[in-house]
């Protein structure tokens, strides 16, 4: 167990262990996310379907079929009723999670749609695509409100902040940009000269910091208003894939991320070296999600694995 940095968690670290392995996809699982209320878990796959699981019983509830291309990302609305998925078939779809039906299809991107997120009010959807644009959609009508020519390379990650006023977008061009969500105006650019491609970016729960993953095996926590990076997390492998990470705040403060060495890594927020490596997947762990209320982590593996694994803390 590596030591953390100066300020340590008041709670001693309790390791996670594998609870269940869920195998139901025919191809690589690209994304896994708990719903905002924690009752459901959704997983998206390159087999063009999404699966909704009950997070309590870990049984399959429904399969959402309809995309004609693999799905790269999904997002839950704040009331846990709707899921929005981003697919290689250039569209996004909004699904009703209860009835498992596709309610809406959002068209407009000209290349595969890679990342998607709802705003906290869930009246807006932001999507990033290989066509290098970020689009903001009206969730109710499906109308694209803004199209932002955001980057010069594929947009790998988009996320709203806590009150929905800002959007952070990360791209393979190595820059992380912050946009005002009401006008689409550029507010800030975070870029390192000759820096590595950014594979993932998201706001911290309080919206003050951005967690940025780069394809040089590094995760950094930036204070975007000062433009300085505050924390750096290493030890994992990330050179190729856009691996999603998450904040774990239900028991102590941790950073959780997947890795290309088939493990899930957990760091203390204040620290640098990993606290635990969760082994079990047989291919790159591409996505992780932390349950909003319980100490549970879900992780997804690529083609060599095709499973969703649930990890809980030892009691």
């Amino acid at each position, binding site marked *: 167990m590596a030591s953390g940095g100066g300020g340590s968690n008041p709670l001693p670290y309790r390791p996670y262990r594998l609870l269940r392995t869920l195998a139901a996809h025919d191809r690589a699982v690209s994304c896994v996310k708990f719903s905002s209320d924690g009752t459901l878990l959704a997983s998206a796959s390159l087999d063009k379907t999404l699966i909704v699981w009950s997070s309590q019983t870990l049984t399959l509830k429904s399969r959402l079929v309809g995309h004609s291309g693999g799905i790269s990302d999904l997002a839950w609305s704040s009331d846990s009723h709707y899921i929005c998925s981003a697919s290689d078939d250039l569209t996004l779809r909004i699904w009703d999670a209860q009835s498992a039906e596709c309610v*809406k299809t959002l068209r407009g991107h000209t290349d595969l749609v890679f990342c998607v997120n709802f705003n906290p009010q869930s*009246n807006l959807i932001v999507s990033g695509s290989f066509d290098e644009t970020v689009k903001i959609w009206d969730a109710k009508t499906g109308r694209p409100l803004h199209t932002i020519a955001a980057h010069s390379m594929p947009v790998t990650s988009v996320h709203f902040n806590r009150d929905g006023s800002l959007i952070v977008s990360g791209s393979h061009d190595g820059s992380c940009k912050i946009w005002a969500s009401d006008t689409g105006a550029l507010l800030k650019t975070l870029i390192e000269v000759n820096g590595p491609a950014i594979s993932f970016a998201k706001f911290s729960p309080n919206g*003050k910091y951005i967690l940025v993953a780069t394809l040089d095996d590094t995760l950094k926590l930036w204070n975007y208003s000062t433009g300085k990076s505050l924390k750096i997390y290493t030890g994992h492998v990330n050179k190729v894939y856009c691996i999603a990470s998450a904040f774990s705040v239900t028991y102590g403060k941790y950073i959780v991320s997947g890795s290309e060495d088939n493990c899930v890594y957990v760091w203390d927020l204040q620290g640098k070296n990993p606290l635990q490596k969760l082994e079990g997947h047989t291919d790159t762990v591409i996505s992780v999600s932390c349950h909003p209320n319980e100490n549970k982590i879900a992780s997804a593996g690529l083609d060599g694995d095709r499973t969703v694994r649930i990890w809980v803390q030892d009691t």
Partner: protein
Amino acid sequence: MNAPIIDPLQGDFPEVIEEYLEHGVMKCIAFNRRGTLLAAGCADGSCIIWDFETRGIAKELHDKDCVAAITSVCWSKDGHCILVSAADKSLTLWDVVSGEKITRTTLQQTPLQARLHPGSAKSLCLACPLSSAPMIVDLNTGSTTVLPVSVSDTGAGLPPPSRNKFSDGSPPFTPTAACFNKYGDLVYVGNSKGEILIVDHKNKQVRAVVPISGGSVIKNIVFSRNGQYLLTNSNDRTIRIYENLLPLKDGLKVLDELSTSCDEVDEAEKLKAVGSKCLALFREFQDSITKIHWKVPCFSGDGEWVVGGSASKGEHKIYIWDRAGHLVKILEGPKEALIDLAWHPVHPIVVSVSLTGLVYIWAKDYTENWSAFAPDFKELEENEEYIEREDEFDLMPETEKVKDTDVNEDDEVDIMTVENESVFSDSDMSQEELCFLPAVPCPDVPEQQDKCVGSTSKLTDSNHSGSPLSEEAGQNGQAMNHASSPVEEDTGGTRLKRKRKPSEKGMELQAEKVRKPLKTMKSSGKISKIKNKPVLEQDTDSYVFADDVTDEYH
């Protein structure tokens, strides 16, 4: 909001028309407390709630009993209810989330303005009828309490409609204006003699009088959001700003103290003396050149700006002053009279309603922030001389510039604490404030091609819309078979365009149909707005066609 890179209040004012909203004929508007929803009362008696972020309709409040034009709309402080006054003399209280009527009262006269009491009870409201004294209405019981509008009324409380004159024989009634102060313990009434009366509405007593010089009829009286400033609009074409000297809470207690400590014997003089300690004239605004009458003046959300509309018919002019009295901007819209105006509680956005029933949204002209493009870009006001260091251009092989580890691992980082927004810190509500209405995605019309295997949308009239569509499918066989990406091709676009027609019969598309196309307005600055936006794609163009989705396919 995140203060570091967006200033929540921005301290600026709008410049150009950004968009307009269209749905029926709207008559009056009101923002909710946070400015996320805009309620608009229509000429047909319904009330539309717009989601201000998406500029789409979030809810429609219809009542088959009320088909008369809405005269005013008012939100409750927690955003859960809306009070609507209509031309059929009724006041209706609606619950926003459910869209259901809570209660309805009918008055003796049409209320021109109705304001809910700022407290949490939501049962009392202040109604200003067409031609009688303002009254407090209890929405649950329907009882009305008429407020005194003149010093001679003190303690009288006679019923209004039969009286046309003051007891001292002054000319017949003209509408008086009234408003609650910030916490609703006092009502400030502006009467036709040019006096501001501070009334204790529980006891129906006038506690202080502030006469305005010139004594002309007061048409509007409004408090700023923080309760520090009071604005009056008089018939002498002047808008006056007063500073509120009373404390925000416990105003009554202070009034009592002032009253007892006042030496005046004559009641009227006493009230004036007390009044002079309650309000202090701060500024006067008028247009000395055109001498126009003002309409619907109000404060900006932070009270830094005052905005007033021109009451002249045939022009849509909005004047913006800073509180110090300088005219900073005149916004000029299309030649339609202005009937209502509201400043967004937080953003530098002004919304105005024109006589034609359209709602115009005025916002800042977009200018590119160049320092946003790279972390070390800094915008300079003027050229700066740069003096290089002695060794700036020397080659120094060994002393590599030490890269500052900008990572200080010892500092603790807090990712959870949220700072309270100072803008809304005056919230003392127990119930959760309603900021947004849930956005339920409207189901798509079922598509013809087999793209969506196994997924059908829940449109109730999907069968209905199926038949006309298949006819058109037959005609344009090749268009329909474009099952591949709905990109570029015009045929693909046309296909979708045609699909709109049958789906217009769907009920949810009533909202879509009337959501705003963005016409190119002739107002100043709009053209430059387009030129200054290199980064953003021209979404403005794509909205020229109301329901067309084609332009998104570039």
